[in-house]
């Protein structure tokens, strides 16, 4: 019977190095998804607050579909769907082609799509909180539409949307656990392997849960720092 500390040590005896690799994968997946999700979410929010009904409709269909599907199902659909789709196309040229879709990229797309559909709602309510006079003011001092957006609206938008986006980041961090189901070696997958080999399931899954908790705590420190920095700008106005 090995002691708990041997199991949790670094090196060939222990599992800490494997779990650390899982932490690396989880964090890089979440960090890679965030910019994609933010950009798509912002664009969808732009479409949903536009005056043009057809743009609003297109944006609303996007949100309805990807907020309504379970994250795990979205992940599977993108992972297997992309595999089958690409394979079909490849077969046209090479009948023996076998395609393996990258689990990391599939996870990134699936989580990014889900994140962006929630983020678009956050951005949309932030857009609604900005008075129309801001646009009119930008227009009256001779700014173009794009300049008004970049110099007048966006700085305020970010400040208003920040709490909601911070919340979404924490949800994203938790949702990355799902990619262990398509074989990506994230924290949970590594903990599962360790649990199966050593038969100390409660220990390793407990450690995995605590690592997620730690990541959430670290994130909230970071979020607080960003919020302080952003609100300092507001005071100087």
């Amino acid at each position, binding site marked *: 019977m090995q002691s708990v500390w041997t199991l949790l040590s670094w090196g060939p005896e222990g599992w800490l190095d494997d779990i650390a690799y899982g932490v690396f994968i989880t964090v890089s997946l979440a960090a890679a998804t965030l910019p994609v999700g933010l950009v798509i979410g912002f664009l969808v929010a732009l*479409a949903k607050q*536009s*005056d*043009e*009904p*057809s*743009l*609003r*409709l*297109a944006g609303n*269909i996007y949100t*309805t*579909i990807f*907020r*309504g*599907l*379970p*994250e*795990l*199902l979205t992940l*599977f*659909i993108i992972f*297997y*769907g992309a595999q*089958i789709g690409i394979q079909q196309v490849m077969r046209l040229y090479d009948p023996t082609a076998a395609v393996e879709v990258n689990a990391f990229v599939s996870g990134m797309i699936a989580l990014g799509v889900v994140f962006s559909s929630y983020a678009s709602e956050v951005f949309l309510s932030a857009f609604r909180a900005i008075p129309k006079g801001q646009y009119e003011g930008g227009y009256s001092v001779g700014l173009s539409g794009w300049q008004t957006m970049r110099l007048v609206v966006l700085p305020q938008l970010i400040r208003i949307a920040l709490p909601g986006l911070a919340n979404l980041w*924490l949800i994203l961090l*938790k*949702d*990355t*656990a*799902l990619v*262990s*189901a398509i074989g990506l070696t994230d924290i*949970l997958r590594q*903990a*599962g392997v360790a*649990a199966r080999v050593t*038969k*100390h*399931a*409660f*220990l390793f*899954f*407990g450690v*995995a*849960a*605590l690592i*997620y*908790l730690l990541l*959430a*705590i670290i994130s909230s420190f970071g979020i607080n720092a960003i919020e302080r920095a952003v609100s300092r700008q507001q005071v100087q106005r």
Partner: protein
Amino acid sequence: MSVAAIDRPPALPRGWPRQRILGYALVCLWIAFLAGIAAYLILAWNGELFAKYAPGYVSGLGITLLLVAISIVLGAILSVPIAYARMSKNRVLSGLAYAYVYFFRGTPLLAQTFLIYYGVGSFRPQLEMVGLWGFFREAFNCAIFAFSLNTAAYQAEILRGAIQSVPRGQWEGAASLGLHKLQTMWKVILPQALIVALRPYGNEIILMIKGSAIVAIITVYDLMGITKLTYSRTFDFQSYVWAAIIYLIIVEILRHAVEWIERRITIHLHR
């Protein structure tokens, strides 16, 4: 204030501005996409397969709904003492409740489910001693246990937020009328709090329905589990498409139901 003072919204620009071209293009893309899925389902239609697996989907849907219903109810019961502890002035009590809520909201539901499903094996002798081993051997029971604890944490926060959103004057007014604390809670505070809480509760149920898909990983044959099973047997991608349609329909029904109830119970607030 005269009605005439309100301006009519400006008329939409005529012709084909850039936004409209983009909007029509995107809507056409969506139509093409949805039509493509419909065409795929029609082309891939296989009566034999449907007859074989459709009953599985129905029972899987039943398991999903049962799982969510039991977890939500148990979680609601459990959330009351947690919310009470969270609002209590006793530092230890509120600290413990805060730690509970923080843990269950800060870790993935999947990790919690694994912790309970695979982790209870570590406590087999103790559980056998108290006779609970039979309960925890079933994946379905483990899922209910994990989901109830998880949703209790979220529901406790919803309840606390809703109760604290009721102004203090309501408590004081009730006290001045000589109402007991419990009476105040039941007759004055809760009716107002629940209006605030309805939408978050609805969202929590939707999140649970979506979150319950993960039980497929621990071999419960809910809607997602049946879908995975069907796919692994047939390698027919339409099994996932059908599941997506069913999940979308449930979530949309729930979302509209919550909106309808909210309109009904806030009638007295609209003038």
